[in-house]
């Protein structure tokens, strides 16, 4: 009876153990894995530069995924994990570049493009205003053409 009770008491821990996930050598809860994936999705793999760390098969990406997961399990805030990466690889590691003097032109581009478009539209309209009035010779020729 006591043994059965003990087993029953252990049942929830069994369910808990089954819920744990292991990736890149780190065991964690699914919520932690989701958080780690969200972080990894924002980081560029340095080896295959158009993939995120989450998508890449490169060994370095796997190591960095392991580091992210270890820190997530430790409860390190997202920002500190990002800073860890930026400190080592520069802002290039961020798939979404931060707003800084270096990226002002990049972020200003949509507004600049819109302004250029508006300017082109305005200049185009101004030129194609009402045509100049006809002089006597032109009026006479128009008369002839209309009568034909």
């Amino acid at each position: 009876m006591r043994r059965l009770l003990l087993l029953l008491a252990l049942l929830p821990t069994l369910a808990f153990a089954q819920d744990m996930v292991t990736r890149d050598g780190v065991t964690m809860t699914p919520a932690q894995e989701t958080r780690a994936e969200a972080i990894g999705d924002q980081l560029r793999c340095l080896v295959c530069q158009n993939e995120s760390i989450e998508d890449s098969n490169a060994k370095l990406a796997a190591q960095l995924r392991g580091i992210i997961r270890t820190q997530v399990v430790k409860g390190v805030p997202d920002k500190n994990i990002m800073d860890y990466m930026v400190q080592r690889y520069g802002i290039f590691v961020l798939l979404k570049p931060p707003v800084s003097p270096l990226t002002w032109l990049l972020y200003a581009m949509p507004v600049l493009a819109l302004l250029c478009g508006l300017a082109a539209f305005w200049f185009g309209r101004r030129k194609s205003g009402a045509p100049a009035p006809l002089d006597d010779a032109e009026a006479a020729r128009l008369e002839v053409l209309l009568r034909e």
Partner: protein
Amino acid sequence: MFGVPLALAVGGGEGFYILLRRMQAQTYDPHALPSPLIGKRPPAFNLPGAAGMQGFANTDIAAPPKPMLVNWFASWCVPCTQESVMLDRLAGGGLAIWGVAYEDDAQNLQKFLAANGNPYQRLAADVDGTTAINWGVYGVPETYFIDKAGIVRWRYAGALTDDVVASTLTPLLEKYS
């Protein structure tokens, strides 16, 4: 009015032409990343020796008597084999080169050094690649130029070629020695 798009197209074309020409001349690599270590000292580390040579720590390169190179390489890396000729030549010319074998196997490393020569004054092993991550190394070979104050002045990702040595390394050596 038609001149504006034409001028833009010509300007863009010229920009691409310059870019491609510089890529061909190997003075511009679009995949190269600027190292955040430039202007700083390398992070703290202490690596054991490899292939019977003495390893080193960050304190050992804090104030070298002359500017030096730290070269990250591996026996499994193909460009490293090509680069070894250049490293031998630079070491022969009196430049101090310290090596770090990145995620390498001791036996393969011995074979690599026997086949390609050993230009290194000291040789450390970064077996699990942790120190490489702290340095921001993202592939091998990678070469770091360290001045007499122990500050990283230049990082080159890829095998050192004649062009790179002539255009960048030689001027750096003149500037910092």
